[in-house]
């Protein structure tokens, strides 16, 4: 456990001393802040539904940037061999990188709570959809980080890793549109692969355990495939 904690600390340090984390956070806050203000001032609606959908898209675009360097960079810098020859398992390495990257996503969500606080100060928002929306974003982040980590373990360099994970995310975002033109029962299968189909109910306050299960299973599958891909090297 001590080894794992040390590994997490090392990854956190690498992430939060690099400019990537701060650039991502600043861009995220600028765009979301603008979007929040615009929605609130124009519609006067006291909810975060629009904002949650925009954070969803932001996650699809920024998480590949966060995860691309996790393993691919170590491979380029040739520090991966050193790490693998240390008395730590592949599982511990992958989990440490996963936890560190997820902590940045959680930090983004924590900072975005300021918008909910504004709503609480000036109005009486319906907290149910806000809680479920944040739960959905957390699960989405957990799933995307795991998938991005897998891409980083598979790809030989950071750009390929980022492009690979971005392609997967975009495909999973819009795949339900193809599902509707397929015959039964393939349509149901393809529609249920979609990230947006499983994310939308969280945002609107309509919580299904199967949607939570979808994101949890992607996260676990991503961690499993990452460990296998790392061990293959």
């Amino acid at each position, binding site marked *: 456990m001590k080894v794992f904690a040390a590994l997490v600390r090392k990854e956190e340090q690498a992430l939060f001393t690099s400019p990537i*984390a*701060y650039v991502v956070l600043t861009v995220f*806050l600028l765009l979301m802040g*603008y979007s929040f203000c615009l929605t*609130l001032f124009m519609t006067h609606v006291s*909810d975060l539904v629009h904002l949650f959908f925009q954070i969803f898209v932001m996650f699809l675009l920024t998480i590949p940037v966060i995860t691309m360097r996790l393993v691919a960079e170590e491979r380029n810098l040739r520090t991966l061999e050193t790490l693998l020859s240390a008395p730590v398992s592949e599982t511990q390495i992958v989990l440490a990188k996963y936890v560190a990257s997820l902590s940045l996503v959680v930090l983004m969500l924590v*900072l975005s709570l*300021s918008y909910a606080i504004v709503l609480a100060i000036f109005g009486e928002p319906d907290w149910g959809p806000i809680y479920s929306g944040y739960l959905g974003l957390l699960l989405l982040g957990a799933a995307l980080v795991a998938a991005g980590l897998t891409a980083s373990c598979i790809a030989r360099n950071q750009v390929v890793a980022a492009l690979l994970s971005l392609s997967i995310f975009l495909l999973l975002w819009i795949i339900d549109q193809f599902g509707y033109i397929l015959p039964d029962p393939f349509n149901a299968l393809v529609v249920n692969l979609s990230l947006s189909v499983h994310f939308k109910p969280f945002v609107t306050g309509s919580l299904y355990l199967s949607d939570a*299960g979808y994101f949890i299973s992607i996260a676990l599958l991503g961690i499993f495939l990452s460990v*296998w891909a790392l061990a293959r090297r």
Partner: protein
Amino acid sequence: MATSLIRRGPRAWFEASLLGGALSLAVLGILAGSDTALADTLFFGAWCAALLLLLSLALRLPLRAGDSVGSRLLRFGVAALGCGMAVLANVALYRHDVHFDMTREARFTAPAELSQVVNALHRDLSLTYFYNEADETAQAAQGALSVLARENPHFRFKTVDLDRNPAEARARGVRAYNTALIESGDRRVQVENTVDLHQVAFGMLRALNERQEISCFVTGHGEPYETLPPHVHYTHVETTQENLRGAGEIVVGTADGLDRLRLALGAFGYADKPITPATLASIPDECSVVVEIGPRRDWAPGEDATFAAYLARGGRLLVMADSTAPIPHGLEDLLSRVGISIEGGIVLDPLNHYGTEPEKIAVPYYPKHPVTDRIAMTVFPRARSVHLRRLPEAVRALPLVVSSKDSHRQDAGRPGGDEESAPGPMVLAAALEGSWPGSASDAPFRMIVTGNSTFAENEYFPVVSNGELAASMIRWLSGDIDTPTIQPQRFSLPQILLTHHQIQAVFLAVEVLLPLSVMLIGAAVWWRRR
């Protein structure tokens, strides 16, 4: 066992705990079988523990395989197996799904009536909802229907944005926003211009009904029934006047007409037709219920015998007396056979009345009966009282609507005169059922008698729960009382209105200070590291 686990290390402990947790939750889920939501929530917990256990066990597999073809195939096989397991786990979870409505207004919770209809479906029923994406009320209705579509595979739900897909709407004969097109087998029902899910539930019942219920309205004695169909004017509000929510229907008809009642019955799937018993040898068998509302002229000789024969074979009769006209003698004779009569004069209620007039009796509470089970206050203007005398042995009678203890009866011709009765509760409506006196048939009759017909006529039908009571009476008589309520559901969104200074403060905090502070922290970290 514990010693063995301790020797094997914390990972073995972790896996053993996961196994124990998954099994315990699964057993608890099986034990909670009757409460499906609780059982499925426990299964979800077991599912999570089992998936974690599988991941942990999978990571125990030999990771560093060689580069031979066999090793590559093994690696590919394990990865494919992992993906397959994830898909199967999701399919299992989807089949035991649990839904939580997190909204304050329960906007994703369909009315109980609609849930009952969907959960009871045993054959396919499809619902296509033609709506406008910008209409929040319609979106809420659509959201609740989407939730239901996941509960029963026989219920297929699809939405069509009328603005984006006018061709499909035209091809299927849809002309108005918020139209639910319900199809089951060969039956096709359109519920137009509604965001009220109760109406959709009734539409579904109509689509599922093999048999059409027919209410036969008695005519020929000056009853207010019009043979022409009710003339309805629709108002449409959802996109152009956002401050007015929901669709409105305005009935164009006389104050004493029955158009509103007929429309409400139509929503429940009932057809109505006029009958003139004086010209009939017997009441037609197709009548689910016979309705005699407000007779103003005497019955023809022999009509009471026609009704008696109908009731003797298990007929269903609703009688609403008109308080401005004498009770037809034939009707009096018919009622006296089961020991009841409609009294002269009108009931005044100084305690519970509508507005300032004691003759408009307000009734807030009812004796327990399926007809009045979910009925709020009703108003009876100028009502007569129903007197329950000695009932025949095989007939049961129950007062449905009773005025307050302060009410009294007054002769309509002499207000304040000697004809006032002593104060006390007066029965304004009563329900009877049992075997018709002298009948050899086993089929029990049902009858409701009210001392007033105005409460069900156009003018008073929309007043508080009058309409619900009138429709509920007819539905009880025809043996169909599962979903009597016709109250519309309303949705609204909380809003925030900010002053100019508040807008500036919010913008400064979330758009300037927050990103700037993160950027400054990043710059400080970079500077220190440099």
